[in-house]
C-alpha cells in the first residue's frame, strides 16, 4: 500500500444526559465502528460531555441546503391553524 489513508469519515452524535436528544458534535476518521466510537469518546468527551455516542458513516448522511429552504419549508408558513394560538377561546374558559 503506497497511498496514505486517513480511513473512513464518521459523523459523531452525542447524548449529554439520559433523556436528552443526540446532538451532532463533529466527525472522526476510523476504519470500523468500534474504533470510530473510541475516537469519538477521546476527541469529544474528555470532560464528561456525554453518556451515549452514535457514529454514522458520513457518506450515508443526506441533507438539504440553504438553497432548498424555500422549497422545503415555505409550505408551512400559511398554516397558522397548526398552532394553539390560532384559536379564539371564549372569555372565562380556563385551563385550555
Amino acid at each position, binding site marked *: *500500500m503506497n497511498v496514505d*489513508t486517513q480511513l473512513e469519515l464518521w459523523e459523531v452524535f452525542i447524548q449529554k444526559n439520559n433523556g436528552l436528544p443526540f446532538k451532532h458534535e*463533529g466527525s472522526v*476518521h476510523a476504519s470500523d465502528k468500534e474504533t470510530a466510537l473510541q475516537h469519538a469518546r*477521546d*476527541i469529544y468527551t*474528555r470532560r464528561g460531555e456525554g453518556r451515549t455516542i452514535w457514529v454514522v458513516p458520513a457518506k450515508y448522511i443526506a441533507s438539504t*441546503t*440553504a*438553497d432548498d429552504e424555500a422549497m422545503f419549508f415555505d409550505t408551512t408558513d400559511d398554516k397558522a391553524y397548526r398552532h394553539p394560538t390560532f384559536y379564539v377561546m371564549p372569555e372565562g374558559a380556563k385551563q385550555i
Partner: protein
Amino acid sequence: MEDILTTPISQTALAHFEARLQNDEKIEPKDWMPEAYRKTVLRQMMQHAHSEVIGMQPEGNWVLRAPSLRAKKILLAKIQDEGGHGLYLYSAAETLGMDRTEMIQLLHEQKAKYSSIFNYPALTWADIGAIGWLVDGAAIVNQVSLQRTSYGPYARAMVRICKEESFHQRQGYEIMATMMKGTPEQQAMAQDAMNRWWWPSLMMFGPHDADSPHTEQSMEWKIKRESNDRLRQKFIDKTIDQAYVIGLTIPDKDLKFNEETKSYSIGPINWDEFWSVVKGNGPCNKQRMTHHIKYHEEGRWVREALEAFAKKQIEMN
C-alpha cells in the same frame, strides 16, 4: 471568480450569499459560496488545525521533566486537548471538500503554514508557564472573536475550543505565579521566559492592519470579526495587569499607560524577526517539521493495519 460572476444565476446566488452574511447567518458546508470565500476559510482553518498539532511539540518536550506528578498530569491533559483541537478543526475544514490526507501533505510540503510562535523553543519549565499564559492567552483572544465567524462548522469548533482553552491559560499563569513566589533563581527564570515570549505572543495576531491586505475582504465576509491590531490591544490590556499582579516586568522600555483610554501603548514590534520566522528561519522550524513527518511516517503501519482489519471484517460478514 470572474467567470462565475458572468452568469446571472451566480449573481443571484452571490446576492443571496451576501444578504445572508448581512443578517449574521452562518454559512453551512453544502450552501453556495463564492470560490474565494471557500478557499479563504479552508486556508485559515487548515492553518489553525496545523498550529494546534505542531503546538504539541514544544510542550511535549517537558512531559518527562515536569516538576511534580500534578504538573505532569496537567501538562499531558493540555497536550491531549491541543491534539483534540487540531482534530475538531481538521474535521471542520474537511467540510469544505479537502481531505485531511491532503492537508497533512500540504503541511509537509510547506505549502500550508502553522502559527510561527511554535518555532520558538521551550527552554525551561517557566516556558511551559509562559506558553500557557501568553501563547494560549493570545490564542484565546483570537478564538473568542472567531466564535462569531460566518462559517458554521468553524464557529462551532471555536465555541468548543474556547471552553477548553481557559484551563490552559490558567495553568500557565499558575506556573508563573508559583515561580514568582519561589527563590530568586526561580523568579529570574520566570522573568526570562516572559522576556522571550512576550514579543512573539504579540506577533501572533499578525501584521498591523495597514499591512494586512486580506483583512478587509475577510471582515466583509465576516470570516474575521475583529482586526489584528484591535485583538492585539485587547490582549495587551488584559495581560499587562496580570503580569504586574505576580511581580513580572514587561520587556518594553517604551510601554506607556494612557489614562484617558485606559489602555497601554507599546514600543515598535520587530517585524523583521516575524517575517524571518514565517519564512522558515526561526530557531525550530526545521525540527518541528522533521518531527511531524517522522511520526506521520512511523504511524503509517497503524493506519494500514486498521484498514486491513476493516476490509477483513467486511469480507467475513
